[in-house]
């Protein structure tokens, strides 16, 4: 017996669903095999992480939704999302997750994967470039402030060359190089 083409429910034309066959079911394994990603599958979507997050109400995807998207296999959406980069890494979500999902660590894993695939936001790249070029993120330029405090103008013992050369051989250096 073959099935007749029966339909139930509202007309499809109004809805544009995400086609599950186009997603990447291996994405969850990629993440759970990264450092501290093991508990990923334990997530039961309680949204405690989102309740704990100080910044999520500014986001399009909430932390619990990002975890859910990883589990569903929405690789491109997660790795190109701005949220994983805007995470403050305050660890509140991870601290409170009742299933011990290491949410913040998983977002780090996502950033690493995203970086490998070349999805790094411009502003983050710019920060990386500053670090590599200048060896520090916040340059002391207002010497008068130090003067007012009776301090010598140069920060004592600040050596940026070492940092620069280390950074050049890390992924940050590589990303900045590729970005140029």
């Amino acid at each position, binding site marked *: *017996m*073959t*099935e*007749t*083409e*029966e*339909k*139930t*429910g*509202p007309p*499809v034309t109004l*809805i*544009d*669903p*995400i*086609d*599950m*066959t186009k997603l990447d079911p291996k994405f*969850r394994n990629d993440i759970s095999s990264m450092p501290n990603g093991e508990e990923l*599958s*334990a*997530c*039961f*979507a309680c*949204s405690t992480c989102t309740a704990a997050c100080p910044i999520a109400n500014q986001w399009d995807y909430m932390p*619990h*939704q990002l975890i*859910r*998207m990883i*589990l*569903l296999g929405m690789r491109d959406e997660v790795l190109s999302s701005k949220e994983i980069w805007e995470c403050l890494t305050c660890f509140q979500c991870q601290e409170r997750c009742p299933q011990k999902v290491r949410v913040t660590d998983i977002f780090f894993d996502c950033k690493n994967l995203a970086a490998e695939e070349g999805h790094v936001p411009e502003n983050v790249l710019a920060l990386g470039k500053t670090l590599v070029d200048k060896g520090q993120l916040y340059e002391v330029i207002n010497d008068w402030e130090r003067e007012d405090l009776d301090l010598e103008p140069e920060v004592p013992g600040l050596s940026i060359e070492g940092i620069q050369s280390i950074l050049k051989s890390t992924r940050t250096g590589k990303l900045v190089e590729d970005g140029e």
Partner: protein
Amino acid sequence: MTDPVLVIGAGVAGMTAAVELADNGVKTILIDRKSTIGGNALELYKAFPTDDCFYCFEGNRWRPGIRKCFYRSAMVDQPNIDLKTDTRVKGISGTPGKFSVILDLGPQYVDPKRCTLCGLCTNVSEAFLLASPQCQPQAVSYDPEKTDDGAKKAEDECPTQAINLSAIQTEETVTVSDIVIATGYHEMKPSVVDEYGYGKLPNVITQLELAQMLDPNGESAGALVRPSDGAQVKNVMMIQCVGSRDENYYPFCSKICCVFALKHANIISSERNDSRVSVVYMDIRTYDQHERYYRETRDAGVEFVRGRVSRVESQKDGTLDVHVYDSLLNRYLKFTVDLLVLSSALEPPEAADELLSSLGLNSASGYVGPADPISENEVVAGEHVYACGGALGPAEVPESVNQARAVVSKILQGRK
């Protein structure tokens, strides 16, 4: 001499009550309207919470001959139990402590004391059926509506002359001291919830139908195949709360469907390697220790989607396209599945209301309600009337067995 106890329904609850009463020296009449005892549990494969075969529960293991077949010999061999299958209650009169019950005994086409399960009749006629090799009583059953030319031949040739096609319905009036209602539950046929296409689309089934498919003794010998064309099932989707927690059907939570759905999801993902399972739910209610099934299924990669189905559409290749609204993502998802399994509500069995009204009992959404709703004796349904197991509402086997034991203890106390 004291009158016997009548137990109505020979599922796990009724069987437990009967065997424990009998072991305590109380004469017990155990009736079931079907020709095979065991009730709903007969059709299930592995059981939570132990994942054992359904017929081996601790505490019954000491009983000879029943590992694998719980109470197998006890029901038939215990001299204090008078088992009557194909039997219904026709009328109840008398007073509590001395009820007069008219039993309607269906025609005994096959004498279980004679049938040796030789298989001759089932070979020559469609009307004979062996429900299960472990069925109790150990006999084939005969369905007169399916009768054919072979039936007469079977009657003539049955080596033990167990068949009597001209058997007729009889009546018997018994006097009993107490009545135990153990009539269980029925899985709702979800064709009324038409958005899922049950009854129209062959690959849409219920959890009980899935349990039979997973059972190695079942028709497909345990293989997970599409009913439409027998093709191997790769993607299974389960839908929770079909007809339960829905004021249009049953307002209550059927309580155990989350646990058995996850039990099935576990069996499929651990024993049927190539199959994927998705579960669409509103809440997952795995009470008590059963939370472990939820955790284990997540670890096993079962996909949980919180939301509801928008549409089900069958495709030419036999698959079903299922569109689901994911309320956590606020997005619609489209799945392609081979089998859609509905966790359908567990409803009171047919004619439960007649029994309630003939004994003047309280109804709890159609199930037997406690006589005194604020007392803790949920098994006490009335004066000398008790209920246990699924008859009180959806319950798992251990709970049904405990309630049956509570009933036995009440009856024994009453006889002291």
